[in-house]
């Protein structure tokens, strides 16, 4: 196995580990601040960040599989989370040329807009599946926490990528 192949495998493995680990983390009873703080949607953050900076490291199949994994793990109908993750994936790829090189405030705003869109669709899906209007507040609250976490995740993600780039250049 040559170095390039090894590097690709490592990058793909890392992104898969991050994505599936974050989905699993959503099921772990973290009970942040006595349960008043819901776990942020880290898988959506990871999909957005990879789609933005390293789309080849996180193929769409990973998002699809992670969504199905979450649907099954949560004992839900099959499909809603897979749809949400793929739509987030598609939205960031569509807007990639606009986001390239932009300030973190623009990126955070872009993420927030994408998040609102995909979570709205999720709410509609769940309301149809549940045959009743689902409460919006828990979704809004968890989405808000996710938006607040995004700039921190962006900072660490970009720092890691910059370090990798310097290492590769060296």
């Amino acid at each position: 196995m040559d170095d390039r192949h090894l590097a690709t495998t490592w990058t793909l493995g890392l992104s898969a580990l991050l994505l599936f680990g974050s989905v699993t983390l959503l099921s772990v009873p973290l009970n942040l601040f006595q349960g008043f703080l819901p776990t942020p949607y880290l898988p959506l953050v990871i999909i957005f960040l990879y789609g933005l900076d390293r789309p080849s490291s996180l193929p769409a199949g990973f998002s699809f599989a992670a969504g199905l994994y979450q649907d099954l793990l949560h004992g839900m109908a099959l499909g809603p989370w897979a749809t949400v993750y793929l739509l987030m994936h598609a939205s960031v790829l569509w807007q990639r040329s606009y986001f390239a090189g932009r300030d973190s405030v623009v990126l955070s705003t872009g993420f927030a807009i994408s998040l609102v869109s995909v979570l709205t669709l999720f709410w509609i899906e769940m309301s149809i599946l549940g045959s009743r209007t689902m409460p919006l507040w828990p979704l809004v609250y968890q989405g808000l926490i996710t938006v607040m976490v995004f700039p921190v995740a962006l900072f660490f993600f970009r720092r890691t990528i910059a370090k990798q780039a310097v290492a590769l250049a060296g």
Partner: protein
Amino acid sequence: MQSALFSKLSRSGLREAERPPANLLVMLGISFFLTVASIYGAQASVFEKARETLLDRFAPVLNLFSGPVRFVGNQVGNVSDYFAVLDENERLREENEELRIWMQQAMALEQRLAEYEMLLDPKVVETNRYIPAQVIAENGGPFRRALILSAGRDAGVRQGNAVVDGAGLIGHVVTVGRQASRVLLLTDANSHIPVYIEAVDTEGLLSGTAERRAEIQQFAGRPKAPLEVGMRVVTSGAGGSLPRGIPVGEVSKLTEKGVDVRLYASDQGAYLVRVIDYAFPDPAQEIDAEGGELGERASVQPGAQEASDG
């Protein structure tokens, strides 16, 4: 410099993918199809089998994740407890005082019950078996409210079993794997449990709301007295899947459609729970216990009764 370097990287990275690949759109189509299919067959055996298999495969992983998280959570909890120790002490004193009074009443009632049992000689068949389990995962989603337990089919857990903690009913088992099981909480929108409001001698259906409360909107009959806040709600045992009399909660609010119920058991932070393996009382067993008296009554077939009437 870092941002300049990143900007350069980002722009060069554009070559990697300019637009969503076709396979993404295909997978998106499949996801939509699966979602629509789920509307008609969410509980289809193929989906259920997949859920069971995943539950079994990932139970050790979830256990691995939840262990350290629980440890850190407990340590943080211990530290924060130090700051509230005085208030907590005061609260416990008051609660202790109240419990002492209840204990005296309970002991007196226990004595009276023993006397009645001695006089009546009832043959009550104990059909409950308790299976202890740990909560290893919970649903992080905003709508679905469920827990994953460390006990499954191997421990004797069956679909439909009630799950309780120290305070009362939490929910019931919906998916059973070999080593793990999923519990649908009372607050889940898909949860519907037959309950009984003791003070008004009325049965109803307790439904989850996807929020941290449950409600009763359907009653088996007109309540025999006006409903009031604070009335105790227990399981009714209707349908035979849950035992009768498990504490559920109390009426917290009267609404136009029915009543809101404040649940005794919290839907968050549960760790050690018990699964009640309940078997609906077997008439044959009761016949044996009654020493044949009931046997004679039970042996009368409906057809025979009609024949004798005729």
